[in-house]
């Protein structure tokens, strides 16, 4: 186990999730997604249990988990702000918006503010390329997210 406390009820919940995916072909990604949905991150204590259940080595499970940008080892901040960095958004000033967000929050990409309120993440394309720049805040999509719009959004997620 790494440096994060084992979430309460972990073993039971993993068991449930593994049962839900019983018989599925190639269940590892759906299992990891379910764990992250349940706990907000993938508790590292779950990996050996998954490995045993799916007849994989711990290294294989770790290898898969670490390959994908979506899976986190540790909880994110209370709010997650994702800003698109891809070309269509760049053409509408996404780099400027990102610089503004970093300065205002005092963090770089993947950073979480000192209060634990906001995690800032890059994303490469939300499919909102004709209403760029695009953002996703706690799962909610935002189009034409210029500096002013972002400020309004950040004002709403300070808690």
């Amino acid at each position, binding site marked *: 186990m790494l440096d994060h406390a084992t979430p309460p009820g972990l073993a039971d919940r993993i068991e449930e999730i593994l049962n839900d995916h019983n018989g599925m*072909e*190639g*269940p*590892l*990604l*759906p299992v*990891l*997604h379910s764990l992250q949905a349940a706990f907000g991150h993938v508790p590292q204590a779950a990996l050996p249990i998954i490995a045993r259940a*799916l007849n994989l080595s711990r290294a*294989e499970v770790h*290898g*898969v988990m670490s*390959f*994908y*940008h*979506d*899976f986190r080892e540790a909880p994110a901040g209370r709010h997650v702000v994702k800003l698109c960095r*891809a*070309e*269509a*958004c*760049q*053409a*509408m000033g996404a780099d400027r918006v990102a610089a503004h967000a970093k300065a205002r929050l005092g963090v770089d990409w993947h950073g979480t503010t000192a209060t634990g309120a906001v995690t800032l993440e890059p*994303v*490469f*394309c*939300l*499919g*909102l*390329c*004709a*209403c*760029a720049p*695009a953002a*996703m805040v706690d*799962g909610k*999509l*935002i*189009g*034409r997210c210029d500096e002013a719009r972002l400020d309004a959004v950040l004002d709403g997620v300070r808690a």
Partner: protein
Amino acid sequence: MKFFIPLDSAAVALGADEVAALILSEAARLDVTVEIIRNGSRGMVWLEPLVEVVTEAGRTGFGPMTLADVPGLFRDLSAHPKALGLVDALPWMAGQTRLTFARVGVIDPLSLAEYEAQGGLSGLHRAMGLDAAGIVAEVTASGLRGRGGAGFPTGIKWKTVADARADRKYIVCNADEGDSATFADRMLMEGDPFTLIEGMVIAGLATGATKGFVYIRSEYPIAIRVMQAAVRIAEDGGLLGPSVLGRGPRFDLEIRVGAGAYVCGEETSLLNSLEGKRGVVRAKPPLPALEGFMGKPTVVNNVISLASIPVILQRGAAFYKTFGLGRSHGTIPLQIAGNVRFGGLYETGFGLTLGQIVDDIAGGTASGRAVKAVQVGGPLGAYHPRSHFDTPFGYEEFGAKDGLIGHAGLTIFDDSADMLAQARFAMEFCAIESCGKCTPCRIGAVRGTETIDRIARGDATAIPLLTDLCATMKSGSLCALGGFTPYPVLSALTHFPNDFAPVKEAAE
């Protein structure tokens, strides 16, 4: 009153949910009975949220709607400041040839009855009257090529799988639409999911596959939700399950969700990811058509390729083939994005020139400044200058300009764009998203960003080094990520040399 308000991601990102909620509460306040259908988007993103009201004359559009515009919908509609007239008569709609997207924005995406009423399932009915070879022959004759970007003839891929002998075969739909400027897959899945399902069922009949997967990127939460709901409805309606429409073979469909890896849009990497492995690219051969998912023969097709199958079967290969140009047959959903005045999705036969698309249809830039460059085909596509505006939109035609059409996304940049920065981003993106399997991509992309930084500092001797590195990446990479990253880099360097000049005069 009956309203159509899109559930499409772009409409929602611009406030469609809030507009819908206010229409409901305003109607309650005025004691007006309303019906709200959450449809797909018509593709005119600059008009979103586009609210349609059903009137005696037809579906009348209002957009882009703000909350302040809502009360006016309950007064004299003809006096509404956002009134657009009949949506089907708008030039953007009237100018298109909507075959694959015929129902997107028109129907309730989750009504199987409406789907059938608007021509849905007639392709499948016709397919069920043919044998497997007959279906493959029809798809081959249509000239349909992979709409994901590679442009491989769909019929030939299907024939390979159909001819392969195995106890199990699979249809995998690649809905990992990660390229910037592309959103056709998303719009189709959100706006007309049964078309994709019907296309996959037909692919199953044609090849003997009984199981399908749709691998959707996690960045598309609404598309995932709509597709999952559509699969359940299709199961209840007998379109999917133990016997297709009660008289065909079994076909089951599962929705899978990606996890933020761009490279999983590459078909072999996607297959590994689907199997629960790292999304590392596989060397070919073996072709996925022979050894794909779990080592079994597998069709891997893009969303738009599969969603074009129903109309091909319904109206016939000859009809579909009448559209297009040269070896690019049929229609293509252009996705016009970036710094654009009229951005969105425009389905048309291949063959419009780049200039017609950018200047006439899209109306130039949103900023009103001159168009400097258009990146065609996503992050791995070339940056085209105005001198390429006479290039007709087709696979071979863009290949001849050292570019590609990819998934038909176009990103427009105005004259404030710094093409050296764009070239550097292409390398940086490749470095971030490389699966790590092959050296030219994994290491080359890192060295590429460093080399472009040297050029930016005024070191002109780094330019031949960059060209050489691009040649290595192009010929030495296993897949299109490393192999095509040189397209944006070299096109930026070739067509916009001033941005790479040792002394940037404009900056002095």
